[in-house]
């Protein structure tokens, strides 16, 4: 069964460093998403990506965040200068479309710890 793959599963970084979280969406999917879950809080939408551009983003997704689909298979989330409050589980998701018979498939998540 096709699945969304995220790497690494756990990333520890020092405050102020840049991190790149990687995702390989399901191959025929067209819509890509990043969500995050701070420990003990809700899963929050960060950004959606379609046709090689950001289609929607939340207020959390400020200038320190960026997304890219560099090679047609990977979908990355970059945090330029990490802060302690960026520590969270980051989930990538993809969907084939937006119609009534499509659903978002989620990866296993990357746990980011900023120290």
């Amino acid at each position: 069964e096709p699945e969304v793959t995220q790497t690494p599963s756990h990333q520890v970084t020092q405050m102020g460093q840049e991190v790149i979280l990687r995702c390989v969406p399901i191959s025929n999917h067209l819509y890509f998403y990043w969500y995050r879950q701070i420990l003990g809080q809700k899963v929050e939408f960060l950004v959606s990506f379609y046709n090689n551009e950001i289609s929607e983003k939340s207020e959390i997704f400020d200038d320190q965040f960026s997304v890219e689909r560099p090679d047609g298979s990977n979908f990355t989330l970059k945090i330029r200068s990490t802060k302690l409050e960026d520590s969270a589980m980051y989930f990538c998701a993809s969907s084939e479309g937006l119609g009534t018979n499509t659903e978002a498939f989620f990866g296993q998540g990357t746990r980011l710890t900023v120290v």
Partner: protein
Amino acid sequence: AQSVTQLDSQVPVFEEAPVELRCNYSSSVSVYLFWYVQYPNQGLQLLLKYLSGSTLVKGINGFEAEFNKSQTSFHLRKPSVHISDTAEYFCAVRRSSNAGGTSYGKLTFGQGTILTVHP
């Protein structure tokens, strides 16, 4: 904008007992409703969804949910739980395709409910 409230952060039950996980939502437009499950060290997996039609929807692993528009609820139920149902459950909504405006599939989640099934 949409919001989702899961009324119970933790629900402990004994094996073979029935369970109900509660979810209420708020939205100014029509929405689709979802329940996702997260087993330890795994990603979010879709349990079931309500898009339109019959208000009682059945999902995987014997779960079902009922959409109640007047009460803006979408509670998840299972008549008899197993140890393997121990997981965190998330209710989520998404703007429907006929709601007007622009939607790119953004999901709004509740806080999650940890279901623990005891032997």
